[in-house]
């Protein structure tokens, strides 16, 4: 006597209006170790394909659940949006510490343990933007925006232009050729919940005489608000490197950069030379990168799901 647990879970997802499928990695290891190894080693590469596999399965077993409101009128583009489904892995055989993160771990599926020290507020993050050409009124849908939009949504709503938004590079209309004049269509764009959580090494894992290390963890969708400050949690996901666009949005730029530029200008004035100046006024900034952990699953270190 057996049961298809993941098919049943898809039915449950529809019943409770959830969008995350929880997959026990132990099942995957038992069933197909080659697939488990591929997912573990190249998780970030295969993530869109895993989500598409889930989407296909939902389309097969719960086709009505694909759209946010399938009974809406066809002209109502906001309600006809398709849902974004996520896959969350848990029960990985190894749980690493923050100190174990290395370059080779980037993009792999792993679990890390840490104590939550700070949680941000939950904000909407633009996943796929929909833009309208202001010249020919053409529409470009599904422009991927990940890691770029969250910090500035309030500015968008206020009508303040934000350079962080990834706009279409060229209007698809061959007679238009517009590259700059775009209007974001918030109604037809896809957003998700987003939260940043700061975690610190567990006290028992800090080597003697060392300072505790910290790491930002990005939570999305149904994973937000699962970790509270003070909780000792295990996060499953991948170690990523993302552009630090928040520094670009600041009016004065990066503080270190300002100091560096001031030092350069002072040195140039002292030497009597006149180098290339005024780059900052042109909007030329250094692009900063930062590391973070993109988590697909959060649970307490003692095994309880928050």
């Amino acid at each position, binding site marked *: *006597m*057996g*049961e*298809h*647990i*993941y*098919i049943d879970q898809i039915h449950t997802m529809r019943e409770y209006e959830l969008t995350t*499928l929880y*997959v026990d990695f132990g*099942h*995957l290891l038992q*069933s*197909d170790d080659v*697939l488990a190894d*591929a*997912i573990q080693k190249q998780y970030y*590469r*295969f993530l*869109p*394909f*895993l989500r*598409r*596999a*889930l989407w*296909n*399965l939902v389309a097969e077993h719960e086709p009505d659940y694909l759209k946010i409101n399938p009974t809406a009128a066809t002209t109502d583009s906001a309600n006809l949006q398709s849902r974004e489904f996520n896959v969350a892995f848990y029960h990985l055989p190894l749980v690493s510490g923050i100190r174990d993160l290395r370059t080779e771990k980037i993009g792999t599926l792993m679990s890390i343990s840490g104590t939550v020290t700070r949680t941000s507020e939950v904000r909407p993050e633009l996943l796929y933007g929909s833009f309208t050409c202001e010249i020919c009124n053409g529409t*470009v*849908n*599904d*422009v*991927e925006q990940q890691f770029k939009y969250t910090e500035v949504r309030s500015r968008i709503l206020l009508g303040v232009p934000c350079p962080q938004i*990834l706009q*279409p*590079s*060229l209007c*698809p209309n061959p007679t238009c050729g517009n590259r700059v004049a775009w209007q974001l269509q918030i109604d037809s764009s896809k957003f998700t919940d987003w939260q940043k959580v700061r975690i610190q090494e567990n006290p028992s894992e800090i080597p003697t005489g060392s300072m505790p290390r910290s790491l930002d963890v990005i939570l999305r969708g149904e994973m937000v608000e699962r970790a509270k400050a003070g909780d000792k949690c295990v996060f499953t996901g991948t170690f990523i490197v993302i552009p630090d666009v928040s520094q670009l949005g600041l009016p004065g730029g990066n503080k270190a950069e300002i100091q560096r530029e001031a030092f350069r200008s002072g040195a140039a004035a002292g030497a009597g030379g006149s180098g290339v100046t005024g780059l900052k006024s042109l909007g030329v900034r250094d692009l900063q990168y930062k590391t973070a952990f993109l988590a697909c699953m959060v649970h307490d270190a003692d095994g309880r799901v928050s």
Partner: protein
Amino acid sequence: MTTYYYESRGHIVAVGPTLKQVQFSVINASSRITSPMNSDQLSSPPPFELSLPISAASEPDSLPRTQTLQRRTTDALTLDDVPSEAPGTVKAKRKKRPKIQNSDIPLVKDAVGESVADTFENFLRTCVICTDDMQCTLNDHVDSLRQLILRLHPVLMRCYKTSLWASTYTSIKFTQCGSTS
């Protein structure tokens, strides 16, 4: 318009001055066998007076340049044994650029990713957890817990006895203190 022929490297080369250029058309010698030239009946061609030196002319063996030259000569010099191309052939041969609907979303074609998606979908579809196995697993856990308790029992009993003895000893001591005081 006069056309001259000469043989070079196993090919018969047709030379015809068109406008200000000297154009060459290369024809495979084997295709000319069907209509061989009779050198006795033909008058000898006049000597060449090329405005360009031979070295400046294209080499007959270089394929890409030959092809471009052939395309030119089909209009100006139409030879009987050269199959004339249809008007739309040149356009048909022209390599068409793939039409991309949205240039910002690249079409990711990852064969490995596709196979991973198929395998993962198959795993989700077919993964069955046997309830009997779950019961067995639960029983195993209970058994292992029982074994652990049995193994720890002497230690626990020793700790319990020690604490019991300590509390008894303390109460006795307090009693003694009370009685002495």
